[in-house]
């Protein structure tokens, strides 16, 4: 079945403005950058965290520490899934204990990835606060998890796929909704 683009949610310009807004919200909510750190969830949460850090540096003149989190080993579907995700390295080069952590991902959907990420961070230490920033919240939560910072809320059906494309990973910046078409 072919995958067809149904709608374009964001272009490069809109994505840039959205990330800038989230960066401002992070600084405002945390009353500055003291003790703040960003952790991106692999894959696309990582470049998003880097872009947020870049924006916060422009706003506050402070380079925030950035960590990379691979949640594969914390997934709850390994025992039941026939799929076997590739494990990549987690690299959080700072102690998380006592830090205000902003967890960054591209799409918030069922909440299971975020649940796994919370477990992974807590295994590294005891942060003071963990907040969540996502570019797109598409709904259909299966766990009591919500984002503190949302780029765009996009109501979707489960049949649809939200694809976030980033320059760093895909060569272009855009967010689209796709769907399998029964042709």
């Amino acid at each position, binding site marked *: 079945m072919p995958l067809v683009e149904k709608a374009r949610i964001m272009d490069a310009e809109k994505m840039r403005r959205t990330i800038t807004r989230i960066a401002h919200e992070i600084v405002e909510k945390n009353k500055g950058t003291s003790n703040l750190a960003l952790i991106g969830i692999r894959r696309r949460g990582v470049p998003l965290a880097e872009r947020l850090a870049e924006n916060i540096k422009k706003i506050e003149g402070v380079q925030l520490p950035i960590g990379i989190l691979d949640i594969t*080993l914390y997934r709850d579907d390994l025992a039941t899934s*026939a799929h*076997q995700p590739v494990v990549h*390295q987690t690299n959080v080069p700072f102690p998380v204990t006592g830090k205000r952590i902003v967890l960054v*991902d*591209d799409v918030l959907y069922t909440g299971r990835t975020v649940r796994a990420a919370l477990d992974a961070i807590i295994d590294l230490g005891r942060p003071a606060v963990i907040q969540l920033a996502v570019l797109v919240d598409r709904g259909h939560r299966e766990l009591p998890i919500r984002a503190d910072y949302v780029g765009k809320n996009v109501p979707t059906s489960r049949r649809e796929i939200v694809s976030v494309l980033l320059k760093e990973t895909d060569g272009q910046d855009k967010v689209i909704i796709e769907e399998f078409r029964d042709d």
Partner: protein
Amino acid sequence: MHLERKQIAGWQRKDLLGLRDLTAEEIELILDTAVPMKDIMRREIKKVPTLRGRSVVNLFYEPSTRTRMSFELAAKYLSADSVNISVSTSSVVKGESLKDTARTIEAMGADVIVIRHSAAGAPKLLAQTVDCHVINAGDGFHEHPTQALLDMFTIREKKGRLKGLKVAIVGDIYHSRVARSNIWGLTKMGAEVRLAGPVTLMPPEVEKMGVKVFYQVEEALEGVDVVMALRIQRERLKEGRFPTWREYARLYGINARRLQKAKPDALVMHPGPVNQGIEITPDVAEGTQSVIQEQVTNGVAVRMALLYLLMGGGTTSEAVN
């Protein structure tokens, strides 16, 4: 994150019986997966919930400290339960066959059986008997794949690659399952393998495995990146394969003078346990070029990777987002 995934080539095998049948890509996948596993071992909390509710049975028909403990810790770090069966106190002494033992273990719900056996081919027989996963932890003179994988991981970690490196394996090649697995693995990964040892401890026609054979250890060590000494077992002396320990040490032992033939940054390796002063002198075994202790650490990481890959499902996928 949503459920759409793109398929990429990955681990497809039920068992790990040896390196002879693996492709270079499969070996690479194991080594790559072991990298994040080693990171877990460095954490304050050395445990991830990945294999919660899975069970690993270590069935060792031969004595072992490091391999058995390594598998046990690998399982525990991934939150799997592990059980060790000591053959001397099991029903094997009552005459229970390997197949019966395996079926009994499987009937109790084991997901993986790790087997070490003095008979070559025992892991294959086991794999054909049971539906659960089987890992060969050493069978006779045949293969010891996880040891070779941890050796390759150690070399790759230190040298950044395997392709094009010169590796000298010195000692009792004839009886060494470690040597065989390393030959299969290293040659597949593009390394040049040289073997050195007494003619009585060299398998006939071993050159057919794509290696170079030397009977003078100094020649074999000339310009190599890695020197791997093998353990000499006491039985070999009784068999009359060489006259005395002292003579073996004098002609084939890795000492500081011989090591100078290798590259200045050559790694010194040994699968352990080391007969100090026989196959390797203490100053070399504990010297700056030695990575013998790191091999032990890496053994746990590689076995964690294998347990994950074997129990992780049938195909590899990566989430699209």
